[in-house]
């Protein structure tokens, strides 16, 4: 028994080490475009695994990511830009004096981005988790819209629809890949504990979970706040990668994209969320050639912007037809190596 656990730990260690080695190799050897895509994949991995925690593992249908990512991105951007850089770009209204004073280094900016999102999630939890049903989806959907409207209508803080520009480009694969690795480890640590079991129990049968003494309100709130924290951090990383953010970046489409990722990968599976991210973010870049003019030898087609989205949708339909629970279902990587009968 002891030997098996050891073997598993070695495998985990090997996976983490090779991931980190790959991040280093990619950062130093690959061209800028590839590194950019890998950065995107790393950030979306953070978002997808944390979104999956509340939506897939705990089974609470939520549409929150764009709101919390926006908050994280704005908090981080406001902290990363120094006073001069801010004063220079506020064109619509003059910024409040305290906005100019905000300044912190990258680590603290990310930490505050996450913490601020988590605190807002905690406040949202109280009305939402006291009742059951799809209220969470409705409230979080509205929350995303409200955040966007607040960002547009408070130019003294957010520079309105112009957004914040010239954010220092701190994000690189060491940061994004490193934090993504930590996020995945943290999420898996939660899933393989009494908290993770309680989350799954709530997904399967909330009444039965309560009858076992599980404080379902507390567990749901923990899952929601953890998701919000990591989404805030992911937003901060995104701001420091894109160097400019505006409210239009965080529309409902952002959430929708993450929803596709976790459904495609398999709701409830962290491994699935990672695979989904690689397929959707990486795949949609790879399929860019579909938008361009093509020569089939016997005929030539003109450029068709959006063609890759058509192909992508067809692929998605086929996955849903033949693998209804997504690519991984509820299984994780290690479940694939188990004997038949065991779950």
């Amino acid at each position: 028994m002891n030997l098996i656990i050891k073997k598993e730990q070695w495998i985990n260690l090997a996976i983490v080490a090779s991931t980190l080695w790959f991040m280093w190799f990619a950062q130093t050897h690959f061209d800028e475009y590839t590194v950019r895509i890998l950065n995107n994949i790393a950030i979306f991995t953070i978002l997808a695994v944390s979104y999956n925690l509340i939506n897939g593992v705990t089974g609470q249908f939520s549409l929150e990511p764009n709101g919390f990512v926006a908050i994280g991105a704005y908090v981080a951007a406001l902290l990363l830009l120094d006073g001069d850089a801010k004063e220079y770009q506020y064109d619509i209204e003059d910024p409040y004096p305290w906005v100019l004073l905000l300044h912190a280094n990258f680590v603290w900016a990310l930490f505050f981005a996450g913490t601020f999102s988590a605190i807002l999630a905690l406040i949202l939890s109280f009305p939402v988790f006291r009742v059951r049903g799809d209220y969470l989806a409705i409230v979080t959907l509205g929350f995303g819209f409200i955040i966007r409207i607040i960002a547009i209508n408070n130019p003294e803080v957010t520079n309105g629809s112009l957004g914040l520009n010239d954010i220092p480009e701190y994000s690189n694969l060491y940061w994004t890949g490193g934090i993504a690795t930590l996020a995945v480890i943290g999420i898996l640590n939660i899933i393989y504990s009494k908290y993770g079991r309680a989350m799954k129990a709530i997904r399967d049968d909330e009444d039965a979970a309560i009858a076992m003494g599980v404080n379902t309100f507390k567990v749901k709130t923990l899952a929601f706040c953890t998701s919000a924290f990591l989404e805030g951090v992911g937003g901060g990383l995104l701001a420091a990668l894109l160097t400019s953010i505006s409210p239009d970046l965080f529309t409902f489409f952002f959430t929708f994209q993450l929803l596709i990722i976790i459904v495609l990968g398999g709701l409830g599976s962290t491994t699935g969320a990672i695979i989904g991210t690689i397929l959707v973010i990486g795949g949609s870049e790879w399929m860019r050639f579909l938008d361009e003019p093509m020569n089939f030898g016997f005929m030539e087609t003109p450029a068709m912007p959006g063609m890759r989205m058509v192909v992508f949708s067809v692929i998605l339909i086929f996955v849903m037809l033949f693998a209804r629970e997504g690519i991984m279902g509820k299984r994780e990587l290690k479940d694939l190596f188990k004997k038949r009968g065991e779950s």
Partner: protein
Amino acid sequence: MILQMKNVTKKFGGVTAINDTSFTVQAKEIYGLIGPNGAGKTTMFNIITGNYEATEGEILFRKETLNGLKPHTIVRKGIARTFQNIRLFSSMSVLDNVLIGFDFQAKYTYLETIFRLPRFFGEEKRVKKRAMEILDYFGIKEFAHYKATDLSYGQQRKVEIARALATNPEMLLLDEPAAGMNPAETKELAELIHNAREDFDLTVLLIEHDMKFVNQLCDKVLVLDYGKTIFEGKPADAIKDKEVVAAYLGDFIHD
């Protein structure tokens, strides 16, 4: 006296599901709750476990009132239950199902979980060992890593009771434990409950329609009809009681 129901009434709008019912369960008793469909038996369970709030009356558990407490708090005070239709966590293994019962007994915090601090490993090891002991007691240890819903009906029933026992209760509420079981399984279950009372120091309150099962197992029964108590006493006397026969048992006696 471990559980005392004092003049409990429960109304759903205009319907009175339970009408001014009082009864007392002694420690280590196996107490049966019987009556025709719609008599208010399951409603009574839901009031004890806190899922419903009694319209009137008081529920005392070890002389402490349960009125107004949240269901998960009542479980922690020592009352566990099973459901009429088996409700296992379908995506989880048998072991994980039982481990849910240990949820509030595993003492480690969320941060200790994320950072895998020493207390996490110690507590996980402790509760897993105890969960395996309970599974061993029920003779389903070998299925620990199987998906709970892949087991046979009788075994699933055992998992459900094992899961309830994992919460370390003083009182166990069983809602129709023998429903859907064949005579052999029913007999085995009766023995199991009988032994579990001694081995786990339990008081059992159960709802059951199988009168043979009730007769064999229960020390005392309460017969409900339309929310009212029509009989309380020994099961052997219940089947002779005219009112009980008229309301519930009917032709059963003449078989």
